[in-house]
């Protein structure tokens, strides 16, 4: 019997493949309308005001009972800081990147850390760390393939991902884009770790088999993810890797990146994924929409199914939908705790 742990201890035990008092419940992106309103934050200020951000995201921990506190909201900070056009969305719609560069040489990142949105993330990490030392403070960052896709445009990424397997010249183009993405990743990672992040959560949404071929993932994406992952480990910080879609064909590659845990979504058969991943913890894969319109029975059933399949933490398939309700989030956390009481 493992004695009661703090949220941070629980998450770290899971990442280090040690016993836990109950399975952790964690999340990736967090921008929940109910919590934005409850914390008195206002759109779009909460994206660039560290205090508002922490007041909102901390409710996922203090009210819903999740084990991590995640910032920033959405996958737009890197692109915004590089000068790409970003539509700021609404209280219930996350910001989205709207433009891209034509050539890698156009990307200027000397002043990356001075951007106000990057600063907000760093300030929010510091603040969350001070206020909630027992929670696992997690920075939500864009991983190299997805960032390269933001830089060149997702459709161009997809097209180039096949062309680069056919012609060396195209491969060089791809490498040029990824190398810039990695440099930016490293600058941001180092700053987040210095600010006190306990964990870096990398979403490589565009490395999904939904967008690029598994062959590309193994040849190009794995070395890039491994490079940023090794860099993060060198800074003394663990990291998680999330990829969207049915990632079963690439789980082996994901596990080979050295990520401390792999996050998968509801399209993935958890039992199959955990088998392929071996001793690398796999987390997931509760359908996010259940937090908006799922019944109590559905939430419990899916949570238990993922954990029965071998998930080492319960997590939503991808981000937390903005229209999630606190009641449903609490039902989910309770379902994971009840499963732990029964099965651990």
């Amino acid at each position, binding site marked *: 019997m493992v004695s009661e742990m703090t949220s941070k201890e629980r998450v770290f035990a899971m990442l280090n493949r040690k016993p836990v008092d109950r399975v952790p419940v964690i999340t990736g992106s967090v921008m929940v309308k109910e919590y934005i309103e409850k914390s008195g934050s206002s759109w779009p200020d909460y994206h660039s005001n560290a205090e508002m951000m922490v007041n909102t995201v901390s409710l996922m921990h203090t009210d819903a009972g999740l084990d991590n506190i995640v910032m920033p909201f959405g996958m737009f900070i890197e692109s915004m800081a590089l000068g790409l056009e970003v539509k700021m969305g609404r209280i219930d719609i996350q910001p989205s990147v709207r433009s891209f560069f034509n050539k890698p040489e156009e990307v200027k990142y000397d002043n990356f850390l001075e951007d106000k949105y990057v600063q907000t993330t760093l300030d929010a990490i510091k603040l969350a760390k001070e206020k909630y030392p027992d929670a696992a403070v997690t920075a939500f960052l864009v991983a190299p393939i997805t960032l390269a896709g933001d830089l060149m445009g997702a459709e161009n990424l*997809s097209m180039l991902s096949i062309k680069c397997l056919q012609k060396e010249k195209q491969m060089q183009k791809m490498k040029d884009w990824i190398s810039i993405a990695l440099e930016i990743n490293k600058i941001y990672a180092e700053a987040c770790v210095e600010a006190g992040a306990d964990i870096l959560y990398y979403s490589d949404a565009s490395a999904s088999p939904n967008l690029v071929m598994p062959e590309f993932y193994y040849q190009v994406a794995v070395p890039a993810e491994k490079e940023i992952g090794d860099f993060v480990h060198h800074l003394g910080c663990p990291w998680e890797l999330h990829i969207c*879609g049915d990632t079963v064909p690439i789980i082996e590659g994901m596990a080979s990146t050295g990520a401390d845990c792999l996050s998968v979504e509801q399209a993935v058969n958890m039992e199959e994924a955990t088998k392929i991943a071996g001793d690398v913890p796999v987390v997931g894969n509760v*359908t996010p929409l259940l937090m908006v319109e799922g019944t109590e029975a559905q939430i419990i059933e899916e949570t238990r199914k993922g954990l029965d399949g071998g998930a080492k933490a319960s997590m939503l398939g991808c981000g937390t939908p903005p229209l999630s309700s606190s009641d449903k989030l609490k039902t989910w956390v309770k379902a994971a705790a009840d499963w732990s009481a029964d099965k651990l």
Partner: protein
Amino acid sequence: MDDLPEEVQELIEELDEAAEDEDEDAIKDLTQKLLATGVDVEAITLKKLALLVMDGEEEMTQGWTQVAIQIGTDPFKTLIEGLAAGMSLIGKKYEEGEAFVPQLLIASAAMYGGMDLLAPYMKQDENSGSKAATVVIGTVEGDVHDIGKSLVKTLLSANGFNCVDLGNDVPASRFIEAARENKATAVSMSTLMTTTMAEMPKVVKMLENEGIRDKLLVMVGGAPITAEYASQIGADVSPHDAASAASWLKGAVFDFPSESVRWS
């Protein structure tokens, strides 16, 4: 192609090279030589186009589309039996898990490359009175992912539908306006993100409130969308992928009242 005489196969290879180099004079010259051999050049060209589109060979597809134009193949036949047939081949492979999105994208670029060359000739067909069913298509508000939507559009176009592409991040009201303006046969919405799924029922509700829901079919799709969700929000279908969207709609419009009856 392997059963063709050696002389013909050599000419085809030379044409491939000329097409890749975008050498129009060489294409013309080689086409004449090919015709002089007495083989069925039209059949060869259509087959070649289908294979080139399937492989995503944009330059070569354009070169062979020029061959089709030169030998006087009906442009609609070139589109359907050549370019679109190639898109269907790769679409089928995708459906069976043997191809991936990038392959669909490069095939789609090749098909559109050929279609651009055919466009000036296709206009003559429009003047002669043939008109395709119109589909209003877009990615819902809050989501900027275009790829899935564009693939559905490509396959619908390849199957003869006239697509009004509203792009991405489309507000609900824009779908309704476009459906009305174009007397649409169908509205097709996509989203990649769970966070924007709730926009879909909003569009269906607006179609109902405007009294035009029964005048058209509603398709919804994207990574998080299931058949159950489609039915729950009042859509007609959530095809598994772009290829099944096109084949479902082809079947559905067959039994659907004509535009003049629906929108009168």
